[in-house]
């Protein structure tokens, strides 16, 4: 039987950089096929070629054995290829119904809005989704929006369904639900492509796996006949050992938070009197289901959002409640924000600017009258190579063009350059591949070994358990319980869910 979708020898370059360099891929009807690789391996680019969004420089595309040339996404839809992108393509102020109508490629407006509404209901019921066609997109959660995307693509007739890193934005539970849906679709005869860098998903939910590295296809395996170690070796090129935490006695409290309260922009109080402390030379992990006040806590601690009540002390005595970011940073606070492109870098500015903003205020690069450009350039070049920031082809290139993992490394390079005493890290490895994730963890452990107090806030329970000396569970803006390492995964997980 011919493959539902087959691409052969695809090349595609962006501004001289070869993102795809002879990549091959195929998926059969009735299977869930994983496309595995690190960030920047070319997975999304390859799928964008298959979905008609990118025009390849060379390469051939076959659908059900017939060679085709895709002239655009509409053409791909006509060939029954549908893609759910990482960034959802939904119009936020519109309803679900309107979004489905908008994507409808042959303009079936005639059957009437009601007909399409009933189609959405039918499709949603079939997939076990609870979606009201009349609700607005911006009222829906991320997981629900993703379901709308899937319904939209299926109603447009897709039988080849490409899911680009669908679980990156989901909680564990939601991810399992989505992957189960993907299996059900495949069982119904669809060809499902699952683009991912999570090894667990590959072995548990897919039939076959194609591994990509540096724009090339390196392996095609049966998912049942392989394991995490082999996949890591294929995707990364080398084996990655997770960094270990050496035991050492913690020092004096460096950050003491007492009864802190903070509210979201809409006035809703999400940090409801939280109390904890972080000592020198320890990592204090704050585990919790996302949306329990973590974001506002980080903002209040880093001087971005003034707290409503409570106090924050740095170094035991020095009152840092409601201090500006400027003052907090002078006192040795560093922050790795969860929203990298929102709070971490100025995307339109160069790598040099984004690195040097960290230290320019203390005169590292010369007086305020005339900061020394060559000094700045050299410092950045040193940091980029020290912290292994990849994808920097020119220090003057815009930071927005770096991948998420490399932006994170750049942020860490900047924040750690000042030898901070207190580090607030919020979901530092979210969306990063195995290697970048290990690099981030290693940096946090190094900072801990150097005597810094690290506050690690993460929805990823494994990350918190592996790195932390002590663990607090945040639920509804308070500490629900604290655990000493080594903590029992089950006990921590139960506290997270029960109090949330």
């Amino acid at each position, binding site marked *: 039987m011919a493959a539902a979708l087959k691409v052969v020898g695809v090349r595609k370059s*962006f501004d001289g950089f070869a993102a795809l360099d002879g990549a091959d891929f195929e998926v059969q009807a009735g299977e869930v096929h994983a496309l595995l690789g690190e960030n920047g391996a070319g997975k999304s680019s390859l799928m964008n070629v298959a979905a008609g*969004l990118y025009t390849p420089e060379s390469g051939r595309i076959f659908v059900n054995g017939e060679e085709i040339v895709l002239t655009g996404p509409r053409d791909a839809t006509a060939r029954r290829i549908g893609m759910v992108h990482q960034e959802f393509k939904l119009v936020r102020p519109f309803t679900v119904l309107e979004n489905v109508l908008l994507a409808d490629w042959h303009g079936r407006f005639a059957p009437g809005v009601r007909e399409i509404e009933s189609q959405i209901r039918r499709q949603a019921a079939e997939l076990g989704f609870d979606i009201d066609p009349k609700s607005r997109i911006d009222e829906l959660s991320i997981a629900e929006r993703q379901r709308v995307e899937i319904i939209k693509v299926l109603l447009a007739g897709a039988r080849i369904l490409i899911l680009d890193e669908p679980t990156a934005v989901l909680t564990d539970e939601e991810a399992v639900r989505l992957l189960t849906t993907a299996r059900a679709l495949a069982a119904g005869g669809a060809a499902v492509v699952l683009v991912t860098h999570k090894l667990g998903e590959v072995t548990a939910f897919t039939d076959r796996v194609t591994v990509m590295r540096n724009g090339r296809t390196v392996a095609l395996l049966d998912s049942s006949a392989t394991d995490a170690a082999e996949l890591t070796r294929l995707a990364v090129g080398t084996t990655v050992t997770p960094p270990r935490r050496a035991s050492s006695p913690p020092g004096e409290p460096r950050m003491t938070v007492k009864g802190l309260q903070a509210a979201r922009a809409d006035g809703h109080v999400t940090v409801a009197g939280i109390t904890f402390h972080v000592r020198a030379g320890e990592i204090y992990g704050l585990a919790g289901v996302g949306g329990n006040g973590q974001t506002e806590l980080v903002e209040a601690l880093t001087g971005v959002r003034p707290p409503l009540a409570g106090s924050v002390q740095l170094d035991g005595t020095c009152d840092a409640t409601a201090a500006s970011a400027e003052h907090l940073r*002078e006192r040795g606070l560093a922050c790795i924000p969860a929203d990298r*492109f929102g709070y971490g870098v100025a995307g339109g500015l160069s790598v040099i*600017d984004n690195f040097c903003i960290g230290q320019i205020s203390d005169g590292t690069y010369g007086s305020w009258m005339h900061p020394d450009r060559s000094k700045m350039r050299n410092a950045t070049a040193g940091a980029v190579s020290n912290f292994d920031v990849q994808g920097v082809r020119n220090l003057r290139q815009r930071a927005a063009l770096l991948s998420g993992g490399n932006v994170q490394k750049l942020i860490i390079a900047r924040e750690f350059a000042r030898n901070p005493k207190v580090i607030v890290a919020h979901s530092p490895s979210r969306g990063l591949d195995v290697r970048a994730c290990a690099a981030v963890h290693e940096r946090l452990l190094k900072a801990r070994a150097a005597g810094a107090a690290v506050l690690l806030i993460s929805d990823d329970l494994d990350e918190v358990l592996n790195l932390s000396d002590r663990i607090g569970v945040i639920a509804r803006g308070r500490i629900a319980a604290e655990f000493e390492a080594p903590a029992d995964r089950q006990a921590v997980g139960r506290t997270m869910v029960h109090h949330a």
Partner: protein
Amino acid sequence: MLSNTAPVASNAQAPLVKGRGSGWRMGRINLEVRQQMSPWYQALTLACAVLVGFAISAALLIAAGVKPAALFDEFVVETFTDSENLHSILFQAAPLIFVGVSAALAFRVRFWNLGIEGQMIWGGIAATAVSFYGIGPPATRLFLMMLFAALAGMTWIVIPLWLRVRWRVNEIIVTLLLNYVALNFLLHLLYGPWLDPKDAFPHSPQFRAFERLPELGFGISSALVLALVFTVLSGWLVLFTRFGFYTKFVHDNDRMALAVGVPIGLVTLVSALFSGALSALAGFVIAAAQEGRLTQSFFEGYGFSGILIAFLARNNPIAAMVVAILVAVLFITGRSLQVFYQIPFAMVQLIQAIIVISVAASEFLMRHRVHWVR
């Protein structure tokens, strides 16, 4: 240009490429986001855009009855050979430089100062007040006029600045509406207490000789020298100092700037105050160098020109100076076209608009690479 939205960084991450389907197999246009832009390429694109703008404008002028040969004669030969003409251009350039640099400074920190004309009016009023009430000895009179003008402009911009910082009131609206307040106060003065007793026209009495900015010879006015000094000062401040480094972050991503400890409040305050002062100085130089008194329409059109100059100069003060001189060429040449060919002055504004649109369109080519596939 006036939107306050931050660039969508996540979109820029993945190069956006879109194939445009065409019926034939000949080829398709492919677009890619450029990873980086060399300054030379940017300058070249900009120059081409301006040339295209000129070409369209020339076509329009020819259609309106100006002979092609005359066009070249008026714009190029006359401008650079006729000393009278060159003098008027440099004379006209001074206030344009002031307003252009003023807008550039404010826009760099996303403070959308549309109140340039209001600040000019206050600059004119303050300078005239010093003359009218004879404040200070003659030797320091001009300096005091300049100082008071700058202070008046700064004071006037404090209102929208404070409203924005304290209550998040949109400064676009406030600065724009305050122009009308300033204008009506000006008219009150000119039709009331400051009405010229000599001819009873609604303008202030003539300034005395020592209250007027002197000519320095070779057709150079001291107004132009002042404008150049302030341009260099502003250029140094935003292009070379730590302050300038901060303004880039406030412009690109103010949330991030706040989080990494950029003193956003201070940076915005200084930029806006400087902007207000420069606009007011434009009013001062028109009153003290061109008109020799306060008139009721000396500021007209400068608000728009300032925004346009800052836009064409990409908020770079030094470039703003160059653009301001080119706009002055357009103004003066437009005036003679008006006289000799009965071309309406609206044509000058049309030419300005065409050039702005060409440059705005060229932005697309700077950000994207366009090529044919297959």
